[in-house]
């Protein structure tokens, strides 16, 4: 069933249009920066953006930071919200279940397919933005800037709070946020780590949307419901008064992928991030299962 769901994902035009849209945003940003040479001042704007004028190879990191807060979760919420509700309203759900496809199997296959979509999007953003960075913003000029990423992680992690330390390094070495140089291999490892972390970060939204998708027959309703939960979470994360619940919010550790670009990698928030997503997946997948397994399919 997983293979069938993946085939459906790949053969659906919508999948590629979403990914193209997600990839387009960093491209547009890169063009503006390259034309105007106006980068956001260090410490402001999206993470890494201020560094990319000097270091085109860092652009994938900046691009991921651009699509993470809105584009990627919106796309994931819509795909996940559509997963069951879309099949229900199109009528294909009853034919799948009468095949028969086990309901539990179907839910898991859907979640795998959503995760595949997320990973595909992240890979596509990374690859296209690397190309963009090298071609438009120019190849490494042997300069790299340590950036304080948008003030978000300024309170966490050693070495994050300092002012940006520009340093000319020899060769093509790129500096980590902590100022120590990274070899090209290390950079690749860390980009891969960040990609994996961001893919996993979307699982929480996906599980919420999937759960809502089993409740309603409206794909749009399920997607918007999940987005509402997401926006609420993003609001609460920045609200001091909500500090009691903040560690449990799905978006709380979203930006922890930046810690992959410290030297050494700062693991604590990354681990928390993985853990909280795992909890969301277990809870909402169980809820989706409990609702869907006993549901009368009347559409």
């Amino acid at each position, binding site marked *: *069933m997983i*293979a*069938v769901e993946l*085939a*459906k994902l790949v*053969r*659906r*035009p919508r999948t590629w249009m979403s990914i193209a849209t997600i990839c387009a945003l960093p491209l547009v940003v890169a063009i503006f920066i390259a034309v105007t040479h106006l980068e956001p001042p260090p410490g402001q704007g999206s993470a890494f953006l201020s560094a990319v004028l000097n270091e085109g190879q860092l652009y994938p990191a900046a691009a991921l930071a651009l699509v993470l807060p809105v584009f990627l979760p919106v796309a994931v919420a819509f795909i996940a919200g559509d997963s069951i509700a879309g099949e229900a309203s*199109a*009528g*294909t759900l*009853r*034919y*799948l*279940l*009468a*095949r*028969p*496809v*086990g309901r539990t199997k179907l839910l898991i296959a859907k979640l795998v397919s959503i995760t595949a979509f997320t990973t595909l999007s992240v890979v596509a953003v990374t690859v296209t933005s690397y190309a963009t960075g090298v071609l438009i913003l120019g190849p490494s000029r042997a300069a790299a800037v340590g950036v304080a990423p948008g003030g978000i992680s300024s309170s966490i992690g050693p070495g994050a709070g300092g002012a940006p330390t520009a340093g000319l390094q020899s060769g093509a070495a790129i500096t980590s946020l902590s100022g120590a140089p990274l070899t090209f291999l290390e950079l690749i490892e860390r980009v891969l780590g960040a990609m994996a972390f961001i893919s996993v970060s979307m699982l929480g939204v996906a599980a919420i949307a999937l759960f809502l998708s089993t409740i309603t027959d409206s794909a749009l309703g399920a997607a918007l419901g999940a987005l509402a939960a997401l926006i609420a979470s993003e609001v609460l994360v920045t609200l001091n008064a909500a500090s009691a619940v903040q560690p449990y919010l799905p978006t709380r550790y979203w930006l922890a992928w930046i810690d992959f670009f410290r030297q050494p990698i700062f693991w604590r928030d990354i681990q928390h991030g993985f853990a909280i997503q795992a909890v969301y997946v277990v809870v909402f997948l169980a809820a989706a299962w409990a609702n869907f397994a*006993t549901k*009368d*399919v*009347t559409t």
Partner: protein
Amino acid sequence: MITTQNLTKRFGRVEAVREVSLDVREGDRYGLLGPNGSGKTTLVRMLLGLVYATSGSISVLGEPIPGRARHVLPEIGALIEQPAAYPHLSGRANLRLLDAAGPHSARRTRRRRVDDALEEVGLAAIDGRPVRAYSLGMRQRLGLAAALVRRPRLLVLDEPTNGLDPRGIRDMRDLLLRLNAEGVTIFLSSHLLPEVSALCTRVGVLDSGRLVLQDQLADLQKPTGRVLVSCDEPERAVALLDGLVERRDGADLVVRSADPAELNARLVAADVPVRALAQERRALEEIVLAVTGAGADQFGARAPAAATPADPSPVADPAPVADPSSVADPAPVADPGDAP
């Protein structure tokens, strides 16, 4: 093949299906009839494990549903209300995808089975256009092909002729008859009486969720003991068959007689030119309307139409005649073409 015992389904306060005990036998062509909203679709969905019964039990191919649905459903081909497909894919791609889902599907034979199924339903030469561009009839054929891909032992079809043109309906009927001759049991639900009477060997009638009738069609349509005669010089015939003529409408007579051959001999012996002569049988419409009330899509409806006699011209005693339409309907098996 399908048996249910006191099957009941309640949606909130609405009892969609009440105490239904179906009995579909191997080799049957079973037609489930009933007005809109009488519970046909809910019943079909319960048989396929899509809707869970409130009480009662279901057994399909000898196995309990939904408990052993995983083992039973691969042997069933189903068309549930409208067909459904992924609109951006071709028909062929849809069938392959659907076949790949679920257990017991041989990948090796998939391509051939899909092509065979498309050929069966008259879509053999279909091109790669997406289902989005299909007409209603093509979608219906594709839906039936999807039911046939696994070469099922039992076909469960909910309104299979929806959206088909007259030729499509004829093709569908021929196909089902052929499959049935090859040993496939067919269970279909419909509110199209002509379809059912042309195809089925056995019927069940649902009304407000209750199974109000279940019998062999041939038994239900036994001769009524009356003969429909159409002749020149009807006055002479009436005089000759003194007292046996129950009704007369122009040249058409309804004659009480158990033996049409004997009646014919009498008329011919008296030199009455007989144009047509046939045993009266009850039309399926009449049988169904007699046992069902107004459909659930009617509110405050009048009494069922069958109870309203609109007798053209009574000759003798009109009281025992239950069927006004049969006068104008001298076909040996009451023509189903008069159904709505």
